[in-house]
């Protein structure tokens, strides 16, 4: 599986994502600068976590307008797999590759801790190696992770099996509607999630629950 991690000014999880991918896929991902206009030939693009453009205007708003994002939008429309983690999820809603928006956390505090999640959907290239309903723990680290969408959109996401990760009961760290932590695009090739699977891919870092996400992608895309 060939992959690329996009680097924006202010990204701070680009190397974590690249390390996880290299370790698990055995191939070094391309690190692509946001100012480039074309993606290399890859099977997967990762929009990493961080604070692109200092979260100016809205988290992910500036990154959504960057050069590389035009090519990502076009290729995602043709089926390219795109994984947006944390700030990457915010970019995906800003580009409208995913519906809804991520608002300021309901408690107004930046939340940085491991949270329990349930894998609700395994019919996707991102989660096929998990069991349906599996409980996993990923860390979160965000100030704007409060998922919002109108009721019709939320019903549609649930009806189409596009809510992939949900915060476990009592674990919602940010006030997200219906405890939503991660969602798929209509064509199921774009996943955005607030928690960080790339930070739990090595027992030395405190967990391994994220490995199956990358293994799913490797299996689906290789």
């Amino acid at each position, binding site marked *: 599986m060939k992959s690329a991690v996009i680097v924006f000014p202010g990204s701070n999880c680009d190397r974590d994502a690249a390390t996880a991918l290299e370790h698990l896929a055995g191939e070094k991902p391309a690190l692509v600068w946001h100012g480039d206009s074309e993606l290399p030939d890859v099977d997967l693009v990762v929009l990493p976590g961080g604070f692109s453009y200092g979260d100016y205007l809205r988290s992910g708003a500036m990154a959504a307008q960057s050069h590389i994002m035009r090519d990502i939008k076009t290729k995602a429309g043709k089926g390219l797999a795109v994984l947006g983690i944390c700030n990457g999820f915010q970019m995906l809603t800003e580009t409208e590759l995913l519906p809804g928006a991520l608002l300021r956390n*309901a408690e107004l505090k930046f939340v940085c801790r491991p949270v329990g999640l349930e894998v609700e959907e395994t019919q996707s290239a991102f989660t096929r190696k998990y069991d349906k309903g599996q409980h996993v723990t990923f860390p979160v680290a965000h100030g704007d992770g409060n998922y919002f969408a109108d009721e019709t959109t939320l019903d549609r996401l649930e009806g189409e099996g596009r809510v992939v990760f949900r915060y476990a009961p009592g674990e919602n760290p940010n006030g997200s509607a219906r405890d939503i932590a991660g969602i798929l695009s209509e064509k199921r090739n774009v996943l955005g999630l607030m928690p960080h699977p790339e930070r739990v891919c090595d027992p030395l870092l405190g967990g391994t629950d994220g490995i199956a996400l990358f293994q799913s992608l490797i299996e689906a895309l290789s």
Partner: protein
Amino acid sequence: MRARVFVRFKTGVLDPQGNAIGNALRGLGFSQVREVRQGKVIDLELAERDETKARASLKEMCEKLLANTVIEKYEIELLP
């Protein structure tokens, strides 16, 4: 031409910052404060003299970048 754009949350979208400001104001003794909604003001200077054209391009700017219309509404004001 100068212009001012107001960006606010749509009705029904939770505004935790507005709530926190409201709580702080009540804490200061302004007990008459019921609800606070906060937003952004963006001032722009445009190389454009035609009001209609200015409004049209400002609307496009709002739709494309200044506001996230999933959660926010905007108002455009042309300044003298």
